[in-house]
């Protein structure tokens, strides 16, 4: 089972429906024990960084998520990806999981914020999670905070996007994947990414 972690932030249903549509067994869970049992974990999320961290802690999910990050296929989506980093300007007093280095900051410059809509993502390396996709594809984004791309981040950066500046759109390190965009809202290409995650979780079994 793929566990979609419910920690009281945002619409999880669309992520669940997308997996269901793909014929993959996924379930919205809110208990530590269910995260521990899962074969793969998805951390979705929309909303405030500090509130998200507070919710995860008050629900007693911090440790289970940390363990999942260390050992099983893990996918962070949008805020769920940001939480895997050190922190965010949005809530400087709330450190994230610090799996990846870097702190998110508000988009700056003469642009509209939040960044809403379909933006191209350039994948700068190959990965099983982008199998079947072109090196540049469009995905749906909704966010106000971003991590500008630096060459120091190249080792774990899977894809970048441009909105006034180049920022990190997708990350990968070992078993952990993170997307700033919403694959569950990005039509066929987004579904492809979730299907690939399913393959990573369940293995390349025919008709899984």
């Amino acid at each position, binding site marked *: 089972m793929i566990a979609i972690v419910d920690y009281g932030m*945002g*619409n999880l*249903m*669309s992520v669940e*429906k*997308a997996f*269901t*549509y793909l014929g993959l067994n996924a379930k919205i869970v809110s208990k530590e024990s269910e995260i521990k049992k899962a074969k793969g974990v998805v951390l979705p999320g*929309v*909303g405030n960084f500090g509130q998200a961290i507070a919710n995860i802690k008050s629900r007693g999910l911090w440790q289970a998520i940390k363990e999942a990050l260390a050992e099983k296929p893990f996918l962070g989506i949008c805020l769920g990806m940001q939480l895997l980093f050190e922190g965010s300007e949005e809530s400087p007093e709330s450190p994230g999981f610090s799996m990846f280095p870097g702190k998110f900051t508000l988009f700056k410059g003469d642009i*509209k*914020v*939040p*960044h*809403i*809509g*379909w*933006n*191209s993502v350039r994948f700068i390396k190959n990965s099983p999670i982008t199998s079947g996709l072109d090196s540049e594809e*469009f995905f*749906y*984004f*909704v*966010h*106000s905070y971003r991590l500008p791309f630096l060459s120091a981040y190249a080792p774990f950066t899977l894809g970048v996007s*441009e*909105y006034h500046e180049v920022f990190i759109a997708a990350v990968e390190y070992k078993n952990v994947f993170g997307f700033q965009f919403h694959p*569950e*809202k*990005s*039509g*066929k290409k*987004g*579904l492809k990414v979730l299907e690939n995650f399913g393959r990573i979780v369940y293995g390349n079994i025919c008709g899984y």
Partner: protein
Amino acid sequence: MLTKRIIPCLDVKDNRVVKGVEFLSLRDAGDPVELAAFYDETGADEIVFLDITASFQKRKTVVELCRRTAQKVFIPFTIGGGISDIEDIKVILRAGADKVSINSAAVRDKSLIKKGALTFGSQCIVVAIDAKFNGNFYEVYIDGGKTPTGMDAVSWAKEVESLGAGEILLTSMDRDGTKRGYDLELLRLITRSVNIPVIASGGAGCLEHLYEALAFGGADAVLAASIFHYGFYTIREAKKYLDEKGVPVRLVEI
């Protein structure tokens, strides 16, 4: 590169599409979910459902629409029409919608925008503004265009932004249904006054109109109904046209 969005709008009543839709390829063109899935498939960037169900069953039917759509449609969708309080917003988002569009209720109770944005995030609060030129300024109308408010659309747009709205859905009542093109003057006034995305609505009759709104009106997205529903143009044709004119769009191969 952020692309400009093409958004078909479906008018729904009692879970059926009202205003005819002519797609022979669809089994049931009256089913909003099937039609939305078709638009998703053919390259629409988002879907807006304008629900004009009036019965006391309204909330139940909207929830059913959201649930069914969320199972088959994997692009963002917005529900508008008769949303009156925070509970409505909660129920609709929980049922799977990505955004709600509020109009009259936002004018009557401005705190609804703020409460909605704080509770669910700005990204899901769209404020719909229906505006009509009264000889002096563009005036905001509510109750489906029936009630003038005396408010200036430009100052209202600025206010909704400051209250936390994530997007503005701007409809020109002077142009709506005329097929004469979007009101570019109104669009420019609003897009220059706010720093949140503005969706142009009202008046699209041909592809050039979409181009004008995006290239000259400063719109971030265009909403259209009849030009797509009646099969005058496909979403794909619209995007190809815009792409050739240099407007950044998401092209979808089918």
